[in-house]
């Protein structure tokens, strides 16, 4: 999967960090989202999808990619 975020519209609720702390972090100065990896490993996929659903500002997008053979 490929993950993108929009820092300009993030409201720093922290929901993504609670869902997938290995994929999302927050900036020290204002709590705005920091994407740690654009391509999280498969075992974190559900957590990342949950982060996208829970994000109140709706600024996390998940692009599902076909598994390569």
């Amino acid at each position: 999967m490929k993950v993108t975020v929009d820092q300009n519209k993030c409201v720093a609720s922290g929901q993504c960090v609670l869902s997938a702390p290995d994929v999302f972090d927050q900036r020290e100065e204002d709590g705005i989202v920091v994407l740690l990896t654009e391509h999280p490993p498969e075992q974190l996929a559900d957590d990342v999808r949950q982060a996208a659903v829970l994000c109140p500002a709706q600024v996390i997008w998940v692009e599902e990619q076909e598994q390569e053979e």
Partner: protein
Amino acid sequence: MPRAAGCPFDPPPDLYALQAQAPISRVRLWDGSTPWLVTRYEDMRTLLGDPRISSDSTRPHYPYQGPGQKERRTQSRAFIAMDDPEHARLRRMVTASFSIKRVEALRPAIQKIVDGLIDAMLAGPKPVNLVQAFALPVPSLVICELLGVPYADHGFFQANSRMLIKRDTTPEQARAATQRLVDYLDGIIGDKLAHPADDLLSTLAERVRAGELSRREAVDTGMLLLIAGHETTANMIALGTLALLQHPDQLAQLRDSGDPRLVASAVEELLRHLTIVHSGRRRVALEDIEIGGRTIRTGDGVILANDIGNRDPAGFPDPDRLDIARNPRHHVAFGFGVHQCLGQPLARVELQVVYSTLYRRIPALQLAVDLDEIPFKHDGLVYGVYELPVTW
């Protein structure tokens, strides 16, 4: 809308009926206005996340909860009642203090506060009013420390806050209480300008000095955080405890588990089940919006009833059952959209510490009166109990 007798934890029957039969319908308010009332979970999420929905309380037809609330918001608006870009500018000045890392770092201090208050209760006479002895002091001590407000003033700010979150507060009472809090916080901001410390109000004072924030904006932000920082969590502690005492199997499961994941899940479930901010999120439509077969017109007031939204079977199976293991993180107790509660990480950690400590340390905790003698905050914009006499 009144709750049903004997069902103090459930939303009013009228809301259940509307959700089932007319999920987006007009209601009549205290001032004769007729905003839309939205009662289904998905509709609520959709609208709260829609940039065509405004939180700006200065717009015509903004559906105020009562004349006192109208007066309060006219006197002191803060970013909760503004739209972007003003809202984002002001909110981002305080978000750093509520990041997951910063709040987690407070956990040991919160644990110490909780343990200290339990020590005092155990050493004192029984029965105890849990609201005064525990539920109010926990979040008040925490928010005072975080903001840099002297806890010695808690009697003053708790009494004035309470005035501002009652449905029947008159405009005169609301104006006076708001003015007292404005003067109080202005004094503290002045102190922080002269003697900066390591706290949030000093950070705001520094922004004032740098010309990035007006002094009045700093005062309004500080007041919002002070009120929201203690009243809400206090009600979750007391009402949550009462709900658990009425569900002894759930209480035993929570007390005996020791699993932090179950504790975190119980916090989410009690937030969902109780939805103490029970007077709905208030908005105004900026454009015509089609939803659920209805058209909300430009300028119409909209109320999103998150208490009944959190009991929608389409969002939560068997929604009226309290099940601390269900971990319903998608609830709307903190709202949804860009205004979703700023303090939610702090509220979560406070409640996790309380729920994992209080019942373990006082396993025989029980009500000292009958349930029907408990005074519920039916007149509050934030629901809860005025008193909770307990013994052990």
